[in-house]
Protein backbone atom coordinates (compact mmCIF):
# COMPACT_ATOMS: atom_id res chain seq x y z
CA UNK A 1 0.00 0.00 0.00
CA UNK A 2 1.36 3.42 -0.94
CA UNK A 3 1.72 5.60 2.14
CA UNK A 4 -0.11 8.89 2.16
CA UNK A 5 2.00 11.87 1.04
CA UNK A 6 2.31 13.38 4.48
CA UNK A 7 3.64 10.04 5.72
CA UNK A 8 6.17 9.63 2.94
CA UNK A 9 8.10 12.67 4.02
CA UNK A 10 10.81 11.91 6.53
CA UNK A 11 10.51 13.34 10.03
CA UNK A 12 12.82 16.27 10.59
CA UNK A 13 13.98 15.24 14.01
CA UNK A 14 13.04 13.86 17.35
CA UNK A 15 11.31 17.06 18.49
CA UNK A 16 7.54 16.67 18.20
CA UNK A 17 5.68 19.96 18.05
CA UNK A 18 2.55 20.15 20.17
CA UNK A 19 -0.76 19.78 18.39
CA UNK A 20 -1.86 23.17 19.66
CA UNK A 21 1.21 24.88 18.17
CA UNK A 22 0.49 23.44 14.75
CA UNK A 23 -3.30 23.63 14.74
CA UNK A 24 -4.25 26.92 16.41
CA UNK A 25 -2.54 29.11 13.75
CA UNK A 26 -4.62 27.30 11.12
CA UNK A 27 -7.97 28.05 12.77
CA UNK A 28 -8.69 31.13 10.57
CA UNK A 29 -7.99 29.15 7.38
CA UNK A 30 -9.97 26.14 8.55
CA UNK A 31 -12.88 28.30 9.60
CA UNK A 32 -12.87 30.23 6.33
CA UNK A 33 -13.06 27.03 4.29
CA UNK A 34 -15.62 25.54 6.69
CA UNK A 35 -17.83 28.62 6.30
CA UNK A 36 -17.61 28.55 2.50
CA UNK A 37 -18.55 24.87 2.51
CA UNK A 38 -21.30 24.94 5.12
CA UNK A 39 -22.53 28.49 4.38
CA UNK A 40 -23.30 29.44 7.97
CA UNK A 41 -21.35 30.38 11.07
CA UNK A 42 -22.81 27.82 13.47
CA UNK A 43 -22.15 24.88 11.14
CA UNK A 44 -18.69 26.21 10.36
CA UNK A 45 -17.81 26.38 14.06
CA UNK A 46 -19.15 22.87 14.65
CA UNK A 47 -17.21 21.62 11.65
CA UNK A 48 -13.95 23.16 12.82
CA UNK A 49 -14.41 21.92 16.38
CA UNK A 50 -15.27 18.40 15.27
CA UNK A 51 -12.31 18.34 12.89
CA UNK A 52 -10.09 19.61 15.69
CA UNK A 53 -11.17 16.79 17.97
CA UNK A 54 -10.66 14.19 15.26
CA UNK A 55 -7.25 15.58 14.42
CA UNK A 56 -6.25 15.74 18.08
CA UNK A 57 -7.28 12.15 18.69
CA UNK A 58 -5.48 10.99 15.58
CA UNK A 59 -2.42 13.15 16.14
CA UNK A 60 -0.39 10.15 17.27
CA UNK A 61 -0.56 8.86 13.69
CA UNK A 62 0.69 12.14 12.24
CA UNK A 63 4.40 12.13 11.44
CA UNK A 64 6.28 15.24 12.60
CA UNK A 65 7.80 17.18 9.74
CA UNK A 66 5.18 16.12 7.22
CA UNK A 67 2.43 18.34 5.86
CA UNK A 68 0.22 19.11 8.85
CA UNK A 69 -1.87 21.66 6.97
CA UNK A 70 -2.82 19.16 4.27
CA UNK A 71 -3.48 16.55 6.95
CA UNK A 72 -5.89 18.68 9.00
CA UNK A 73 -7.58 20.16 5.93
CA UNK A 74 -8.26 16.67 4.71
CA UNK A 75 -9.83 15.82 8.08
CA UNK A 76 -12.00 18.93 7.90
CA UNK A 77 -13.08 18.18 4.36
CA UNK A 78 -13.92 14.55 5.18
CA UNK A 79 -15.80 15.67 8.27
CA UNK A 80 -17.79 18.05 6.11
CA UNK A 81 -18.54 15.34 3.57
CA UNK A 82 -19.99 13.10 6.26
CA UNK A 83 -22.08 15.90 7.75
CA UNK A 84 -25.73 16.27 6.86
CA UNK A 85 -25.06 19.44 4.85
CA UNK A 86 -22.08 17.91 3.10
CA UNK A 87 -23.91 14.75 2.13
CA UNK A 88 -26.80 16.72 0.69
CA UNK A 89 -24.55 19.08 -1.25
CA UNK A 90 -22.23 16.44 -2.68
CA UNK A 91 -25.16 14.28 -3.75
CA UNK A 92 -26.56 17.24 -5.64
CA UNK A 93 -23.42 18.03 -7.56
CA UNK A 94 -21.78 14.61 -7.92
CA UNK A 95 -23.55 13.62 -11.12
CA UNK A 96 -22.97 16.95 -12.80
CA UNK A 97 -19.34 16.80 -11.77
CA UNK A 98 -18.78 13.30 -13.13
CA UNK A 99 -20.57 13.97 -16.40
CA UNK A 100 -18.73 17.11 -17.26
CA UNK A 101 -15.36 16.04 -15.97
CA UNK A 102 -14.91 13.13 -18.36
CA UNK A 103 -11.95 11.77 -16.51
CA UNK A 104 -8.95 14.08 -16.66
CA UNK A 105 -9.37 15.17 -20.22
CA UNK A 106 -9.26 18.80 -19.24
CA UNK A 107 -11.50 21.71 -20.03
CA UNK A 108 -12.87 22.20 -23.56
CA UNK A 109 -11.01 25.13 -25.04
CA UNK A 110 -14.04 26.34 -26.95
CA UNK A 111 -15.79 27.13 -23.71
CA UNK A 112 -13.19 29.69 -22.67
CA UNK A 113 -14.35 33.16 -23.42
CA UNK A 114 -11.22 35.24 -23.85
CA UNK A 115 -11.70 38.80 -22.76
CA UNK A 116 -9.47 41.76 -22.47
CA UNK A 117 -7.66 42.36 -19.17
CA UNK A 118 -9.12 45.86 -19.09
CA UNK A 119 -12.60 44.42 -18.90
CA UNK A 120 -11.53 42.06 -16.13
CA UNK A 121 -9.95 44.86 -14.17
CA UNK A 122 -13.30 46.58 -13.89
CA UNK A 123 -15.18 43.44 -12.89
CA UNK A 124 -12.46 42.09 -10.65
CA UNK A 125 -12.35 45.24 -8.56
CA UNK A 126 -15.89 44.49 -7.41
CA UNK A 127 -15.32 42.21 -4.43
CA UNK A 128 -19.02 41.70 -3.76
CA UNK A 129 -19.54 40.49 -7.31
CA UNK A 130 -16.67 38.02 -6.95
CA UNK A 131 -18.05 36.73 -3.67
CA UNK A 132 -21.46 36.31 -5.23
CA UNK A 133 -19.96 34.46 -8.19
CA UNK A 134 -17.98 32.19 -5.87
CA UNK A 135 -21.14 31.40 -3.94
CA UNK A 136 -22.70 30.15 -7.15
CA UNK A 137 -19.88 27.73 -7.90
CA UNK A 138 -20.57 24.04 -7.36
CA UNK A 139 -18.84 22.75 -4.22
CA UNK A 140 -16.20 20.64 -6.07
CA UNK A 141 -15.13 23.66 -8.10
CA UNK A 142 -15.29 26.10 -5.20
CA UNK A 143 -13.12 23.98 -2.93
CA UNK A 144 -10.29 23.69 -5.47
CA UNK A 145 -10.41 27.43 -6.09
CA UNK A 146 -10.26 28.12 -2.35
CA UNK A 147 -7.43 25.68 -1.74
CA UNK A 148 -5.46 26.89 -4.76
CA UNK A 149 -6.02 30.65 -4.65
CA UNK A 150 -6.78 31.42 -1.01
CA UNK A 151 -4.67 28.77 0.73
CA UNK A 152 -2.02 28.88 -2.02
CA UNK A 153 -1.66 25.11 -2.00
CA UNK A 154 0.11 23.20 -4.73
CA UNK A 155 -1.86 20.92 -7.03
CA UNK A 156 -0.29 17.91 -5.37
CA UNK A 157 -1.43 19.02 -1.92
CA UNK A 158 -4.94 19.70 -3.20
CA UNK A 159 -5.05 16.27 -4.83
CA UNK A 160 -4.05 14.74 -1.51
CA UNK A 161 -6.68 16.63 0.46
CA UNK A 162 -9.48 15.95 -2.00
CA UNK A 163 -8.32 12.41 -2.73
CA UNK A 164 -8.45 12.93 -6.49
CA UNK A 165 -5.81 12.73 -9.24
CA UNK A 166 -3.78 15.85 -10.04
CA UNK A 167 -5.33 15.89 -13.52
CA UNK A 168 -8.75 16.25 -11.95
CA UNK A 169 -7.47 19.10 -9.79
CA UNK A 170 -6.21 20.89 -12.92
CA UNK A 171 -9.43 20.30 -14.77
CA UNK A 172 -11.53 21.54 -11.85
CA UNK A 173 -9.41 24.67 -11.49
CA UNK A 174 -9.83 25.39 -15.19
CA UNK A 175 -13.56 24.81 -15.00
CA UNK A 176 -13.91 26.80 -11.80
CA UNK A 177 -12.11 29.83 -13.19
CA UNK A 178 -13.98 29.63 -16.48
CA UNK A 179 -17.26 29.47 -14.56
CA UNK A 180 -16.25 32.46 -12.44
CA UNK A 181 -15.39 34.52 -15.53
CA UNK A 182 -18.64 33.56 -17.13
CA UNK A 183 -20.60 34.57 -14.03
CA UNK A 184 -18.69 37.82 -13.69
CA UNK A 185 -19.12 38.88 -17.29
CA UNK A 186 -22.70 37.65 -17.65
CA UNK A 187 -23.97 39.54 -14.62
CA UNK A 188 -21.41 42.19 -13.82
CA UNK A 189 -23.94 44.41 -12.09
CA UNK A 190 -25.32 41.80 -9.71
CA UNK A 191 -23.44 42.85 -6.65
CA UNK A 192 -23.53 40.82 -3.48
CA UNK A 193 -26.40 38.60 -4.49
CA UNK A 194 -26.18 36.64 -1.31
CA UNK A 195 -23.40 38.37 0.44
Amino acid at each position, binding site marked *: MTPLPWKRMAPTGPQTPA*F*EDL*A*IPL*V*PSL*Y*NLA*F*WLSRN*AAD*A*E*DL*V*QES*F*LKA*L*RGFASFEPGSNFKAWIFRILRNTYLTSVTGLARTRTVALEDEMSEGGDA*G*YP*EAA*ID*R*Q*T*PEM*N*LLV*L*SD*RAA*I*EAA*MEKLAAPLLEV*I*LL*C*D*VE*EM*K*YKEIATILEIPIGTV*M*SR*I*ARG*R*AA*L*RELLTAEPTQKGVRG
Partner: protein
Amino acid sequence: MSEHLSSLQLNALVDGELAREQLAIVQEHLTECAACTSEALAQSLLKAATKKAGLRFTPTDALEVRLAAVVRREAGADRRTAREDGGRAWISFVGVAAALLLVVGIGGMALWGRHQAGVNLALANRAALETEAIDQHIATLAANTEPQVISTDRHTVKPWFQGKLPFSFNLPENLPADTKLEGADLTYIHGQPAALLIYSIGKHRVSVFVMQRAVETAVPVKLSDHTGFHVIGFITRDLNAIAVSDVDPGRLAGLVGMIFQAQSGVDLPTK
Protein backbone atom coordinates in the same frame (compact mmCIF):
# COMPACT_ATOMS: atom_id res chain seq x y z
CA MET B 1 4.78 26.87 -30.46
CA SER B 2 2.29 28.29 -32.91
CA GLU B 3 -1.06 27.37 -31.29
CA HIS B 4 -2.50 29.30 -28.35
CA LEU B 5 -1.82 28.11 -24.83
CA SER B 6 -4.45 25.82 -23.34
CA SER B 7 -6.40 26.77 -20.26
CA LEU B 8 -4.52 24.10 -18.33
CA GLN B 9 -1.20 25.68 -19.33
CA LEU B 10 -2.42 29.16 -18.45
CA ASN B 11 -3.67 28.03 -15.06
CA ALA B 12 -0.50 26.10 -14.36
CA LEU B 13 1.44 29.24 -15.29
CA VAL B 14 -0.41 31.54 -12.89
CA ASP B 15 -0.37 28.85 -10.18
CA GLY B 16 3.38 28.39 -10.50
CA GLU B 17 2.95 24.72 -11.41
CA LEU B 18 4.90 24.59 -14.67
CA ALA B 19 8.10 22.61 -14.75
CA ARG B 20 11.21 24.53 -15.83
CA GLU B 21 11.21 23.32 -19.42
CA GLN B 22 7.44 23.85 -19.77
CA LEU B 23 7.81 27.33 -18.34
CA ALA B 24 10.50 28.16 -20.90
CA ILE B 25 8.25 27.04 -23.77
CA VAL B 26 5.29 28.99 -22.42
CA GLN B 27 7.36 32.13 -21.85
CA GLU B 28 8.73 31.95 -25.37
CA HIS B 29 5.19 31.70 -26.71
CA LEU B 30 4.04 34.65 -24.61
CA THR B 31 6.74 36.89 -26.11
CA GLU B 32 5.18 36.51 -29.54
CA CYS B 33 1.44 36.04 -28.76
CA ALA B 34 -0.45 39.07 -27.49
CA ALA B 35 -3.70 37.12 -27.08
CA CYS B 36 -2.16 34.55 -24.75
CA THR B 37 -0.28 37.25 -22.82
CA SER B 38 -3.56 39.04 -22.32
CA GLU B 39 -5.21 35.80 -21.27
CA ALA B 40 -2.45 34.99 -18.80
CA LEU B 41 -2.83 38.44 -17.29
CA ALA B 42 -6.58 37.96 -17.02
CA GLN B 43 -6.14 34.61 -15.24
CA SER B 44 -3.59 36.14 -12.93
CA LEU B 45 -5.91 39.00 -12.05
CA LEU B 46 -8.77 36.57 -11.46
CA LYS B 47 -6.58 34.52 -9.14
CA ALA B 48 -5.64 37.61 -7.14
CA ALA B 49 -9.27 38.68 -6.95
CA THR B 50 -10.53 35.28 -5.78
CA LYS B 51 -7.78 35.14 -3.18
CA LYS B 52 -8.93 38.46 -1.77
CA ALA B 53 -12.64 37.63 -1.93
CA GLY B 54 -12.11 34.09 -0.68
CA LEU B 55 -10.62 35.34 2.58
CA ARG B 56 -14.05 36.29 3.70
CA PHE B 57 -14.90 34.64 7.00
CA THR B 58 -13.09 35.18 10.27
CA PRO B 59 -13.56 33.03 13.35
CA THR B 60 -14.62 34.65 16.58
CA ASP B 61 -12.14 34.90 19.43
CA ALA B 62 -14.50 32.71 21.39
CA LEU B 63 -14.02 29.85 18.92
CA GLU B 64 -10.27 30.01 19.24
CA VAL B 65 -10.52 30.06 23.03
CA ARG B 66 -12.94 27.12 22.90
CA LEU B 67 -10.63 25.13 20.65
CA ALA B 68 -7.68 25.82 22.89
CA ALA B 69 -9.78 24.59 25.84
CA VAL B 70 -10.68 21.47 23.87
CA VAL B 71 -7.01 20.76 23.27
CA ARG B 72 -6.14 21.25 26.93
CA ARG B 73 -9.07 19.12 28.02
CA GLU B 74 -8.11 16.27 25.69
CA ALA B 75 -4.49 16.50 26.73
CA GLY B 76 -5.60 16.23 30.36
CA ALA B 77 -7.69 13.19 29.49
CA ASP B 78 -4.67 11.56 27.85
CA ARG B 79 -2.58 12.14 30.94
CA ARG B 80 -5.30 10.66 33.09
CA THR B 81 -5.56 7.64 30.79
CA ALA B 82 -1.84 7.10 31.16
CA ARG B 83 -2.20 7.25 34.92
CA GLU B 84 -5.10 4.82 34.74
CA ASP B 85 -2.99 2.44 32.65
CA GLY B 86 -0.39 2.56 35.37
CA GLY B 87 -3.10 1.89 37.92
CA ARG B 88 -4.34 -1.08 35.92
CA ALA B 89 -0.84 -2.51 35.76
CA TRP B 90 -0.55 -2.20 39.49
CA ILE B 91 -3.91 -3.83 39.98
CA SER B 92 -2.84 -6.65 37.67
CA PHE B 93 0.20 -7.15 39.85
CA VAL B 94 -2.07 -7.38 42.87
CA GLY B 95 -4.12 -9.94 40.94
CA VAL B 96 -1.05 -12.09 40.33
CA ALA B 97 -0.11 -11.86 43.96
CA ALA B 98 -3.59 -12.93 44.91
CA ALA B 99 -3.33 -15.90 42.55
CA LEU B 100 -0.12 -16.97 44.29
CA LEU B 101 -1.95 -16.82 47.56
CA LEU B 102 -4.59 -19.02 46.02
CA VAL B 103 -1.92 -21.60 45.21
CA VAL B 104 -0.83 -21.49 48.79
CA GLY B 105 -4.36 -22.31 49.72
CA ILE B 106 -6.03 -19.11 50.77
CA GLY B 107 -8.78 -19.43 48.18
CA GLY B 108 -11.30 -17.30 49.92
CA MET B 109 -8.81 -14.54 50.46
CA ALA B 110 -7.91 -14.57 46.77
CA LEU B 111 -11.51 -14.27 45.65
CA TRP B 112 -11.96 -11.31 47.94
CA GLY B 113 -8.78 -9.77 46.54
CA ARG B 114 -10.03 -10.04 42.96
CA HIS B 115 -13.33 -8.52 43.85
CA GLN B 116 -11.56 -5.73 45.65
CA ALA B 117 -9.30 -5.13 42.62
CA GLY B 118 -12.37 -4.76 40.42
CA VAL B 119 -13.89 -2.31 42.86
CA ASN B 120 -10.63 -0.39 43.06
CA LEU B 121 -10.46 -0.17 39.27
CA ALA B 122 -14.01 1.13 39.06
CA LEU B 123 -13.30 3.63 41.81
CA ALA B 124 -10.11 4.77 40.06
CA ASN B 125 -12.04 5.26 36.85
CA ARG B 126 -14.77 7.09 38.66
CA ALA B 127 -12.20 9.34 40.32
CA ALA B 128 -10.72 10.09 36.89
CA LEU B 129 -14.19 10.90 35.59
CA GLU B 130 -14.77 13.28 38.48
CA THR B 131 -11.44 14.99 37.85
CA GLU B 132 -12.20 15.37 34.15
CA ALA B 133 -15.65 16.76 34.91
CA ILE B 134 -14.14 19.34 37.26
CA ASP B 135 -11.49 20.24 34.66
CA GLN B 136 -14.17 20.82 32.06
CA HIS B 137 -16.30 22.80 34.49
CA ILE B 138 -13.34 25.08 35.28
CA ALA B 139 -12.37 25.37 31.60
CA THR B 140 -15.91 26.37 30.68
CA LEU B 141 -15.99 28.98 33.43
CA ALA B 142 -12.58 30.31 32.39
CA ALA B 143 -13.49 30.52 28.70
CA ASN B 144 -16.67 32.38 29.58
CA THR B 145 -18.22 31.35 26.29
CA GLU B 146 -21.87 30.96 25.55
CA PRO B 147 -23.30 27.44 25.42
CA GLN B 148 -23.88 25.94 21.99
CA VAL B 149 -27.59 25.98 22.70
CA ILE B 150 -28.81 28.84 24.83
CA SER B 151 -32.24 28.27 26.28
CA THR B 152 -34.07 27.98 29.56
CA ASP B 153 -36.65 25.75 27.90
CA ARG B 154 -36.11 22.01 28.30
CA HIS B 155 -38.17 21.47 25.15
CA THR B 156 -35.51 23.39 23.23
CA VAL B 157 -32.45 21.97 24.95
CA LYS B 158 -33.35 18.27 24.82
CA PRO B 159 -34.25 18.15 21.09
CA TRP B 160 -31.00 19.98 20.27
CA PHE B 161 -29.13 16.77 21.12
CA GLN B 162 -31.11 14.69 18.64
CA GLY B 163 -28.69 13.08 16.22
CA LYS B 164 -25.75 14.33 18.25
CA LEU B 165 -25.75 11.70 21.00
CA PRO B 166 -26.30 7.94 20.87
CA PHE B 167 -28.75 8.14 23.78
CA SER B 168 -31.51 10.35 25.11
CA PHE B 169 -32.42 11.67 28.53
CA ASN B 170 -35.10 13.67 30.27
CA LEU B 171 -34.92 17.10 31.79
CA PRO B 172 -36.99 17.94 34.86
CA GLU B 173 -39.99 20.14 34.36
CA ASN B 174 -39.73 21.79 37.76
CA LEU B 175 -36.52 23.02 39.27
CA PRO B 176 -35.63 24.05 42.82
CA ALA B 177 -36.05 27.70 43.75
CA ASP B 178 -33.55 30.11 42.20
CA THR B 179 -32.37 27.39 39.80
CA LYS B 180 -32.43 27.93 36.05
CA LEU B 181 -31.45 25.95 32.98
CA GLU B 182 -29.03 28.15 30.99
CA GLY B 183 -28.30 25.96 28.00
CA ALA B 184 -26.18 23.02 26.93
CA ASP B 185 -23.11 21.90 25.07
CA LEU B 186 -22.12 18.74 23.31
CA THR B 187 -18.91 17.54 24.88
CA TYR B 188 -16.68 14.52 25.30
CA ILE B 189 -15.87 13.13 28.69
CA HIS B 190 -13.93 10.03 29.53
CA GLY B 191 -13.66 9.36 25.80
CA GLN B 192 -17.36 9.30 25.13
CA PRO B 193 -19.89 11.87 23.92
CA ALA B 194 -21.88 13.55 26.64
CA ALA B 195 -24.50 16.21 27.14
CA LEU B 196 -23.23 19.09 29.24
CA LEU B 197 -26.27 20.72 30.82
CA ILE B 198 -25.59 24.13 32.25
CA TYR B 199 -27.67 25.34 35.17
CA SER B 200 -27.38 28.28 37.47
CA ILE B 201 -28.30 28.23 41.12
CA GLY B 202 -28.33 31.83 42.18
CA LYS B 203 -25.06 33.14 40.82
CA HIS B 204 -23.37 29.74 40.93
CA ARG B 205 -22.91 27.80 37.75
CA VAL B 206 -23.58 24.07 37.69
CA SER B 207 -22.28 21.69 35.03
CA VAL B 208 -24.18 18.42 34.71
CA PHE B 209 -22.60 15.82 32.43
CA VAL B 210 -24.96 13.12 31.19
CA MET B 211 -23.50 10.17 29.31
CA GLN B 212 -24.16 6.56 28.54
CA ARG B 213 -23.62 4.24 31.47
CA ALA B 214 -20.31 2.45 31.16
CA VAL B 215 -19.33 -0.54 33.24
CA GLU B 216 -15.97 0.85 34.20
CA THR B 217 -17.38 4.00 35.74
CA ALA B 218 -20.68 2.62 37.02
CA VAL B 219 -20.08 3.34 40.67
CA PRO B 220 -22.65 5.57 42.30
CA VAL B 221 -21.17 8.89 43.17
CA LYS B 222 -21.74 10.27 46.58
CA LEU B 223 -21.35 13.89 47.36
CA SER B 224 -17.65 14.66 47.49
CA ASP B 225 -15.37 17.69 47.46
CA HIS B 226 -12.47 18.37 45.14
CA THR B 227 -10.47 21.58 45.31
CA GLY B 228 -13.44 23.52 46.55
CA PHE B 229 -15.95 22.08 44.10
CA HIS B 230 -18.72 19.74 45.08
CA VAL B 231 -19.34 16.72 42.90
CA ILE B 232 -22.39 14.51 42.95
CA GLY B 233 -23.74 12.02 40.49
CA PHE B 234 -26.12 9.18 39.89
CA ILE B 235 -26.52 6.16 37.68
CA THR B 236 -29.64 4.75 36.15
CA ARG B 237 -30.03 1.61 34.08
CA ASP B 238 -28.75 3.40 30.97
CA LEU B 239 -27.25 6.69 32.06
CA ASN B 240 -24.42 7.99 34.10
CA ALA B 241 -24.49 11.60 35.31
CA ILE B 242 -22.14 13.78 37.27
CA ALA B 243 -22.68 17.35 38.46
CA VAL B 244 -20.03 19.88 39.47
CA SER B 245 -20.45 23.23 41.18
CA ASP B 246 -19.25 25.39 44.02
CA VAL B 247 -22.80 26.01 45.18
CA ASP B 248 -24.03 24.82 48.56
CA PRO B 249 -23.91 20.98 48.50
CA GLY B 250 -27.51 20.65 49.62
CA ARG B 251 -28.77 22.80 46.75
CA LEU B 252 -26.62 20.89 44.27
CA ALA B 253 -28.02 17.63 45.58
CA GLY B 254 -31.54 19.05 45.21
CA LEU B 255 -30.99 19.79 41.51
CA VAL B 256 -29.31 16.44 40.84
CA GLY B 257 -32.18 14.69 42.63
CA MET B 258 -34.69 16.30 40.31
CA ILE B 259 -32.69 15.35 37.22
CA PHE B 260 -32.49 11.78 38.53
CA GLN B 261 -36.23 11.76 39.17
CA ALA B 262 -36.87 12.90 35.59
CA GLN B 263 -35.03 9.81 34.36
CA SER B 264 -36.29 7.16 36.71
CA GLY B 265 -39.50 8.52 38.21
CA VAL B 266 -38.25 7.90 41.75
CA ASP B 267 -36.27 9.93 44.25
CA LEU B 268 -32.48 9.79 44.26
CA PRO B 269 -31.39 7.24 46.87
CA THR B 270 -29.64 8.93 49.75
CA LYS B 271 -27.27 5.98 50.34
